[in-house]
């Protein structure tokens, strides 16, 4: 195996381990607990069914937890290492910085996929535990986990790039999530379609028949392609920025 591939694997595995060892997991547990509580409570309400569960998952997972977790982990990943200067080990190794960046990205994606899986399972199972209707529940959970994996790919690429570019990436990230994805995304018309969340919902409409998300208009193939292209463009841009960056 070439030096760059061994190095990429090393950066991915050690950065993933570092993220998982970080105290932020307490925040994740808190958010996961909140999701489980809300979904468990909602399941006890009259008329709770899979449509209701699907709508809840869109709000709690797709619109909130997925981008927020991606921001918390992605924006701080390389930026924190630059700030505490632990990045020195990576940037003084004979590894092309573009491969190092890809290693960080893969590590981030692995960790976020693990976290969204756990939170979605906990939230989904909490709903199913209290809901009188359970048919289609497992399929719905799997659908939302799959959707979030795709979301993780895009959001990770976006927030890792912002974290590499900026010293205070959290503010821009929050503005993006709550203003662009939240506010602009809810504006009627075509501008509202220019969000990652909307593209994920278009894909969701193809994967599930439950909830209002099933009625989202759009071509799931075009949305998938758009997200893949966006992800690749963001990763390439991040790798370029990281290669050009002076680290003092």
């Amino acid at each position: 195996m070439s030096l760059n591939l061994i190095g990429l694997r090393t950066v991915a595995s050690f950065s993933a381990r570092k993220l998982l060892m970080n105290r932020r997991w307490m925040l994740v547990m808190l958010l996961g607990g909140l999701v489980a509580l809300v979904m468990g409570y909602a399941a006890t309400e009259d008329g709770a069914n899979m449509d209701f569960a699907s709508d809840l998952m869109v709000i709690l997972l797709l619109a909130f937890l997925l981008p927020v977790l991606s921001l918390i982990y992605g924006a701080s990943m390389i930026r924190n290492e630059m700030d505490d200067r632990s990045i020195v080990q990576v940037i003084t190794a004979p590894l092309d910085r573009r491969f190092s960046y890809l290693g960080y990205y893969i590590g981030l994606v692995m960790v976020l996929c693990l976290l969204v899986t756990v939170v979605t399972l906990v939230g989904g199972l909490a709903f199913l535990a209290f809901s009188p209707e359970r048919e289609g529940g497992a399929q719905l959970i799997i659908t939302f986990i799959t959707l979030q994996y795709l979301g993780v790919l895009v959001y990770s690429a976006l927030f890792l790039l912002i974290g590499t570019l900026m010293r205070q990436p959290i503010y821009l990230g929050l503005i993006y999530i709550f203003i662009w994805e939240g506010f602009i995304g809810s504006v009627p018309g075509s501008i509202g379609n220019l969000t990652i969340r909307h593209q994920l919902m278009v894909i969701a409409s193809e994967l599930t028949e439950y909830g209002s998300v099933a009625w989202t208009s759009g071509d799931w193939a075009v949305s998938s392609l758009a997200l893949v292209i966006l992800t690749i463009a963001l990763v390439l841009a991040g790798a370029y920025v990281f290669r050009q960056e002076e680290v003092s």
Partner: protein
Amino acid sequence: MSNVVEARMLSKWYGQVIGLNNFSIDVPKGITGIVGPNGAGKSTFFKLLTGNIKTNVGHLRVLGEEPWQNPSLLAKIGFCPDYDFLPPDLNGREYLRFVAGLHGMEGLRTVDRVNEVLSIVTMTKDADRAMGGYSKGMRQRIKIAGALLHDPELLLLDEPLTGTDPLIRKEIIDLVKDLNKVHGHDVIVSSHVLHEIERMTHQVALIYKGRSVASGDISEIRRLMSDHPHNIVLEGRGLVPLAQTLLTKPYTSSIELRPDRLGMFVRVDRPEEFFDALPELVAGTGAELERVESLDDDLESVFRYLVG
């Protein structure tokens, strides 16, 4: 290739702050000490050598290659920074495995090499403990082990003695000497304390305010230090006759006697001659000295003198 580093008219600035200013130096093979006070530009120089930052102006060659955006050069360089960056939750062996992976090393060869460098830095016994519990000296040694792991031609050690106690200093100084003598690595080591560097090497470069103010054999530097004017404080009794005698000596440029006559400041051009003659002058004038102290024996004043 006779020099491991060649820098010509290098300048590096960070916004309004100048890190290096028209900095030129040739670093030969062997051990070379880079000496300068804090903020002189030593760390900036190391960052340029490792390609972490790029020069604004000038020409830099490390092992014959341009360092900026040149990852293959880093296979020949081992860098140990002056700050602490070790992950506290990893143990020493895990950390070295991480470093090995970054250098494209894997398999049995890596296990053997990790054991070998742990032995070189005498950390075998503590290699399986979490690094968060390491002492300063242990952390320095494991950092050096990380820099050594891929068997580089050139080792860059930025202030490896900072914050260590005298015993650890001796161990690290001996280790640096061995790294060159026994293991054949060329070493560039920095410090803000000249005598620490002097115990490792006679080849020294002095940096002050981003400029290389002198380089060469340490005896030359010593000569420069002894040649520059010194302000010396003398305290005791019977100083007036001593002051009168000193004023007749060619190396004395001025004397300022305190009003209480129990102390004086003497400015001398050639301190070595002054210190050689002082015992005889004291005995001849009957003065009783309680304190003799040069106010200019620190590096900072030598640098100020060298840069005018």
